[in-house]
């Protein structure tokens, strides 16, 4: 999972404190694990260094969390491109696919279009694996089958998610 891109995506909604970003990250993308504060601030620091976010003035108060971070046009462009781009069809992608869909919905982007592109990418890989099954030996064929079952699981998830995009959009916007 790409933590920097997920944080950038969350910042694309509105300028936020590190604490808010961590809370939303944990809620939507943590999968039961929480992102350490240290990682949130080190990531934000690198994003600031690279010109993708800006850190506001220190606000009065205690603790490290006194800055508001805002995304820059460079950062926005990166989020935009990342959301639309299908991921290479490999096993164990669920967190990346899920993050892209949720962020797209939060930001009012074309989640359905992304899912279509992802389905096409998965099917192209399945076509390659089908060819390996047709021409390869038994070992290759069984390995290809393993990959195909995993891709099929993603594809089923893509279908179901696509059918429920409206409800999911409400769920992530209402929070």
């Amino acid at each position: 999972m790409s933590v920097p891109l997920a944080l950038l995506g969350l910042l694309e909604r509105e300028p936020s404190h590190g604490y808010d970003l961590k809370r939303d990250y944990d809620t939507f993308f943590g999968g039961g694990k929480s992102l350490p504060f240290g990682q949130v601030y080190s990531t934000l620091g690198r994003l600031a260094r690279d010109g993708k976010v800006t850190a506001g003035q220190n606000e009065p108060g205690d603790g490290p969390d006194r800055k508001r971070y805002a995304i820059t046009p460079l950062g926005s462009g990166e989020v935009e491109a990342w959301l639309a781009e299908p991921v290479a069809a490999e096993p164990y992608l669920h967190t990346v696919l899920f993050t892209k869909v949720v962020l797209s919905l939060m930001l009012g982007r074309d989640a359905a279009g992304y899912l279509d592109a992802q389905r096409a990418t998965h099917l192209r890989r399945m076509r390659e694996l089908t060819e390996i099954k047709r021409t390869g030996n038994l070992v290759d064929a069984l390995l290809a089958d393993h990959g195909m079952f995993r891709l099929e699981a993603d594809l089923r998830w893509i279908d179901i998610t696509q059918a429920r995009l409206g409800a999911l959009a409400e769920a992530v916007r209402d929070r």
Partner: protein
Amino acid sequence: MIVNALLRAEEISRSYGDTPALREASLSVTAGEVLAVMGPSGSGKSTLLHCLAGIFTPDSGEVWFDGRRLDTLDDGRRSELRRTAFGFVFQFGQLVPELTVADNVALPLLLGRTRRKDAYARAASWLERLELADLGGRRTGELSGGQAQRVAIARALVTGPRVVFADEPTGALDSLTGELVMELLVALAREEGTTVIVVTHDARVAASADREIVVRDGRVTDPYASGVGR
């Protein structure tokens, strides 16, 4: 527009009473191509297939086959075209259970006035290609699901059609049997240069096609047309 399209739909729409099933769907298939049609149930896949095959006529839009307008042909010419140029495989229920396997496969030829002896000879050779040579004398009511679908494929191909339309041909089979049936259909179609349009929601079936389109709410999305899926 694809210049060398064998079969093409241009913005076809079709409703059942007040229910719109297709909304300006467009699609183009080249000769010899194997195309998978995917999409949620109720999205209009079967309606699209029926319009392309000249079983239904769309309310608006155009269907072209091999340089000829298909949707404006009169009923007689359209059914003649279906009988000579198209083959069909459905999910189930297409074979005549009281007849033998060989009778079922020879039937389209007999209806087309091929001589009996020739019809049965050609049926036998197709049964052999579908690894069904031993079953010619069986009644189709006695076959397993996978065997019945192979017979249906033999029957669809026996007339030497330009296009085979298949609507969920593996929908009633377990995945391994379905894969085998699809493998045979695709392999034989490629040998014959036959175009195949197959409706399926099984990703494995779609993966044996050259390309897939997705139908959603009666509209066709072609992920390759926009360039995004490349």
